[in-house]
């Protein structure tokens, strides 16, 4: 039972001041084992805050991040799953599922976590699953001002992942979940 937080696109301090208080009250240290961050934090203080929630933090570089040492993409293994992270501004057209699928095949991961669109999405294709946690602060994106703050918490348990989606809609936290299993047989690799 491994809890992995997927979060990103906070754009603090440029586009938002802080996480919504209702989110902040839920995010306490000691519960989460890994954090996956798509990028665009943008400053060190946010990095430190995330680090205080969980020491195992993985970040990729978003175009507004002030720390240039973050990598463009990252892959890691948690339990039976391989996860890949990429901010997503590098993949053109932005948010296009086919292009993201290409990236996923390139990284050879089961779950690809990307951001940049500030819109939550969970999409499945033959290569695996793409998850976009959206923007945790509700910062405006390159397309629209109408953004609901959201983030994702994954519960990885063997071959099964339960994805809990936390969204702040009209001031209330709404939680949904998505279930999927990885088939034991490996994907066709050629």
């Amino acid at each position, binding site marked *: 039972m491994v809890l992995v937080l997927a979060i990103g696109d906070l754009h603090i301090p440029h586009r938002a001041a802080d996480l919504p208080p209702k989110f902040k009250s839920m995010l306490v240290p000691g519960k989460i084992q890994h954090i996956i961050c798509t990028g665009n934090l943008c400053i060190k203080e946010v990095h430190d805050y995330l680090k205080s929630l969980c020491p195992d933090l993985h970040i990729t570089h978003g175009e507004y991040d002030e720390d240039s040492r973050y990598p463009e993409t990252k892959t890691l293994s948690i339990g039976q799953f391989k996860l890949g992270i990429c901010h997503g501004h590098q993949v053109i057209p932005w948010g296009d599922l086919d292009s993201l699928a290409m990236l996923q095949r390139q990284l050879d991961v089961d779950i690809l976590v990307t951001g940049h669109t500030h819109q939550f999405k969970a*999409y499945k294709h033959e290569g695996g699953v793409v998850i976009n946690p959206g923007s945790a602060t509700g910062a405006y994106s390159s397309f629209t001002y109408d953004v609901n703050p959201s983030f994702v918490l994954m519960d990885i*348990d063997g071959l099964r992942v339960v994805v809990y989606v936390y969204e702040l809609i009209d001031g209330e936290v709404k939680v949904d979940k998505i279930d999927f299993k990885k088939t034991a047989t490996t994907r066709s690799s050629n």
Partner: protein
Amino acid sequence: MVKKKVPDWLNSSLWATTTSSSSSADDDRLQRYSSKHSIIADTATPTEPLDGSPVPVSTPASIREQPPRPSKPEIKIKDKDKDSRNSVSSNINNNEEDNGNSVAGPSAEDISRQAQLLTELSKKVVNIRELRRIASQGIPDGAGIRSKVWKLLLGYLPADRSLWSSELAKKRSQYKHFKEELLINPSEITRRLEKSTVCENDEAKSESSGMLSRSQITHGEHPLSLGKTSIWNQFFQDAEIMEQIDRDVKRTHPDLHFFSGDSSFAKSNQEALKNILIVFAKLNPGIRYVQGMNEILAPLFYVFRNDPDEEMAACSEADTFFCFVELLSGFRDHFCQQLDNSVVGIRSTITKLSQLLKEHDEELWRHLEVTTKVNPQFYAFRWITLLLTQEFNFADCLHIWDTLLSDPEGPQETLLRICCAMLILIRRRLLAGDFTSNLKLLQNYPPTNISHLLYVANKLRAQPSG
């Protein structure tokens, strides 16, 4: 051992070599045994037909039933459990620094005691009072006797043998239920709840691509939930206790292979200890887990797990759980901090010990508490709360527990008497010492002859010494 200015009964010649005991006008048995042992000592040749092996006078554990093992005079603590069990008893005999007495005596006593115990255990209805009487003199180490006797004494097994299998089955399945309910993590729980409602055509969907469907969560149950009734929240709150239990279990008896080390056996034993403590903590939210419970659990589990009967050993975890609950029930209040100053708390028990000492040996009491100002809390706290597991080596500890569990006065009273006896036995050193040396001595109690200690403790029962 000659002690000046000390009552005669402390100076019993029972512990001297070869003479038949005329020490006390207590039970016949003592007389009978001492005459027996004098015979053996006199003959000095290993013509005893009692055990088939040559010259094993130092191994009362070489029993008729088991194939005789070569006696191992030194205790090998790091050995595997079976070996240590056998050499344990030889250690009891060799560990006689105070009196250089013969080893022949206990052997005959032990064997006869064992015979009595076996007879008692094989009766249709076990006479518990009789069992207590025999067991209070010590239980031999072999043939799973201790395991059965402790279970009977703690009330886990009923006296009527015919009920044993049904009782055991009931209790074991109850424990299994506890484990299933309490040791499960929230992911498992949600998965099981869903299994009842999931539609199996999910499998078919899994092949196609597309947006993943979102589903509702039940009752606001999600991992970051802060609700009091949320299973996730409760899980995280319990996590701290689990960590504490885990740490303590890993530190239990690091010198014994049974409990520590890298072997899978040790690991599975640690797992079992952890499970028992976690289930106990969850079932008793008032007291939860307190450091030290692992020490009380350890001897119980050791004895039950090493039962030569395969079936008993396999279910040792469940058996240990119930016996642990029973044993702790008398001492629970010592672990509750709020009750420290109350009538049932640890302070009051320590005061009782102090009173007992004053009653039996006023000189020592005065010297300890008034002159050198050694507050009994400094040493007796550990003695009492941990039931003397930390003061003696493991083997001696089992021996003491035999008496503790079997005495009809009850474990608490017996414990106090034994503690008092511990003080009286080293009175000479204590009387000669100051605060520092006395405290040092009491916090690292010197190894003693356990049988002697228990004998003295027994004597403290009826009347104060003259």
